[in-house]
């Protein structure tokens, strides 16, 4: 059982992505293979230099950087969405792999969750 969790909503304005991240953490806690895919406006999670303390929130990039420590297998980002939001691979959090969002990408996961 391999799960892909898709984060397609930008951080801070709503909690959907944070809830997706918690789902990934809990699968990792039970040693279940899990990957996170950032696509659409969700790629803004990966932007460096976030200062969320200015809006009294936790920085999602820092929260996300715990994912590999906990055993989340892959952090993926859709290349078209990165281009759209002016993000080059060098601008991203370390360890993020660039992919293309397409049916073939999803087909290798037995569960796909889009919270």
């Amino acid at each position, binding site marked *: 059982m391999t799960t892909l969790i*898709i984060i*397609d909503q930008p951080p801070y304005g709503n909690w959907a992505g944070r809830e997706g991240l918690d789902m990934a953490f809990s699968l990792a806690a039970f040693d279940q293979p899990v990957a996170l895919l950032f*696509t*659409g*406006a969700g790629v803004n999670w990966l932007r460096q230099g976030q200062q969320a303390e200015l809006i009294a929130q936790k920085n999602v990039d820092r929260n996300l950087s715990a994912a590999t420590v906990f055993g989340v297998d892959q952090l993926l980002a859709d290349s078209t969405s990165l281009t759209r939001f002016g993000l080059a691979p060098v601008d991203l959090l370390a360890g993020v792999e660039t992919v293309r*969002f*397409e*049916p073939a990408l*999803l*087909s290798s996961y*037995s*569960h*796909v969750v*889009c919270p």
Partner: protein
Amino acid sequence: MTTLHILNKSPDHPRFALCLAAVTGEDQLLLTENAVLALADTTLTLPARVAALAADMDARGLTGNGLSRYGVGFDHMVRLTTQASRIISW
């Protein structure tokens, strides 16, 4: 492996396009809630295998122009979930 895609967002929601980008020719798409409005959206091309919850269509007045052939009940929705090897709710 056939996938059932359950889509409940209106055609304007970014996830609507995301879902369509994930559907293959073999996959089944089920439109629920506001997504049934896609049947009335003249700018959209939907995949070949598409159904929509009849209650959601009727509730929104989507009854004319041969649309009723898309309508299914919750019993059919259950059948689709049994037939698919994977279900993605968008």
